[in-house]
């Protein structure tokens, strides 16, 4: 038998040798399993009566979603507030998309110089690592809590996200198409807007729309957390101020419907692009 074969401790033949990554992954899984078990034992359960808590939770959920109604606000107002939230998300996305397009030209390695590409990449990685809410709060220092800080903060994070998505799409463009235009005497700007953008248009649209959906969700949260207004603020008032389960349910359902409409719209756009 070949001497290259290795044996397990029980004498059977090994068919594979785990590499470093697999070993790390195995220990991670074991570690998180142990922490989960230990975590349950360390929680504070005083005053918790499961026999009462579970039916009450179900009852609350039932009130929220089975008998939703708007008690402290009107339908007109609620829809208006949804419009406000959509505008916040839209503004942040569109501003972010324009800035991202130009930054992505500088980031894509086939269109840019390595030092510029690496600088932008490093910068956006840091921006992306910090959650959107934190950016909003950071900009609230300058702009004060409200819509302005929310839009700037969301835009900041959108840029970090879209630059990565756009530049990766740009890098997929066939080098030959760029060469063909360069050989005909076209300038750098011509190549960007006559080859790169038309060739990646459907990706650009679908990424931007995906970010818009995310920004709508974030804008709901920002309404409450940063006082940006919109349906998020109504939701915060209904739950934290009036403690009105039925209204919370109604608002949640409205947001859900809007999200589904956005999703359908995104699919339609992607097909036609």
């Amino acid at each position: 038998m070949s001497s290259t074969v290795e044996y397990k401790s029980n004498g059977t033949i090994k068919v594979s040798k785990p590499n470093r990554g697999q070993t790390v992954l195995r220990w991670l899984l074991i570690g998180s399993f142990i922490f989960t078990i230990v975590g349950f034992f360390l929680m504070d359960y005083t005053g918790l009566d499961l026999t009462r808590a579970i039916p009450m939770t179900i009852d609350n959920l039932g009130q929220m979603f089975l008998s939703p109604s708007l008690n402290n606000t009107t339908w007109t107002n609620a829809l208006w507030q949804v419009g406000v939230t959509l505008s916040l998300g839209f503004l942040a996305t569109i501003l972010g998309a324009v800035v991202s397009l130009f930054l992505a030209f500088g980031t894509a390695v086939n269109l840019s110089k390595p030092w510029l590409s690496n600088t932008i990449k490093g910068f956006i990685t840091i921006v992306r690592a910090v959650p959107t809410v934190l950016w909003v709060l950071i900009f609230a220092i300058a702009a004060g809590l409200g819509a302005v800080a929310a839009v700037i903060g969301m835009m900041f994070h959108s840029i970090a996200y879209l630059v990565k998505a756009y530049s990766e799409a740009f890098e997929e463009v066939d080098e030959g198409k760029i060469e063909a235009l360069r050989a005909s005497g076209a300038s750098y700007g011509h190549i960007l807007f006559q080859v790169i953008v038309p060739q990646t248009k459907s990706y650009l649209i679908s990424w931007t729309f995906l970010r818009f959906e995310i920004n709508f969700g974030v804008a709901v949260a920002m309404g409450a957390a940063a006082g940006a207004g919109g349906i998020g603020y109504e939701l915060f008032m209904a739950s934290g101020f009036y403690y009105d389960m039925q209204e919370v349910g109604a608002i949640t359902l409205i947001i859900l419907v809007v999200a589904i409409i956005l999703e359908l719209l995104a699919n339609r756009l992607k097909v036609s692009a």
Partner: protein
Amino acid sequence: MAVDKKVKEVNKVEERTDFNKKATDNVLISFDEDIEVTGQEVETLSKKEVKQMPVIMSIDNLYKEYSKGKNVLKDISFDIKKGELLSIIGPSGAGKSTLLRSINRMIEPTSGTITFNDKDITNVKGKALRQMRTNIGMIFQHYNLVDRLSVFENVLHGTLGYKNSLQGIFSMYTESEKEEALDIITELGIEDHIYKRCDELSGGQKQRVGIARALIQKPKIILCDEPIASLDPSSSRVIMEHLRKICNEKGITVIVNLHQVDVAKNYSDRIVGLNTGEVVFNGHPSEINKEVIQNIYGTDFDDLIME
């Protein structure tokens, strides 16, 4: 249908006996994928005629090394005549593509000079380089069209070299440019497809769009990098005959990289043979024989697959 075809063939035969040149013209005029092209007679130039033509570009002692000490092109020197169809043949890796791209400076040569229209273009930069490139069209093996744009838009891309950034970015083409593009498209027989996206076309049609894009530049020279390497024999013939026609009728110099020796022999006025970066043959197609092939490809003539 079948009868029609037969009548056509009879007509063709008659014309051919009538006058050699006329027959060639007839064959070259109507191109459509459905029509069988029977252009055996290609109007090429004799050795003497080529010799008398004025020089449009001369390449002197051209070297290119990618990594130190490894020359892809070694001491390349030859003249390119105005209005000739020049084929460059040689095995893979001989430096054909590098040579072609050195001519329009898509690749920077390490040393040597290229003179185009009595001007040294080896070191031109920026605007002058762009302007020089507008005078040299290029077509590619993989067509290199923007698939998601229409045939019309792709052809108009050839005019970008004459435009400033703003005009180009916002696709501001003049009516006369559009009309010119239409003329060229019609000439190449793809007028039925002008508003189609380029990814809907067949290979032969795509290559014709490529030729149209090069022609609208009003070039003095057209460089063709393996224009027929991805095409079937009948499309290849259509493309080669279009190139021949451009050369004969418009007096544009055409330089073609080719893999097929017999195609080169059939269509060119002159052939340059490259082997490992050196010119090993430079002469009239009629001078190609077994020894020359042996020299260029390093194998016997009989071992080559001839299409």
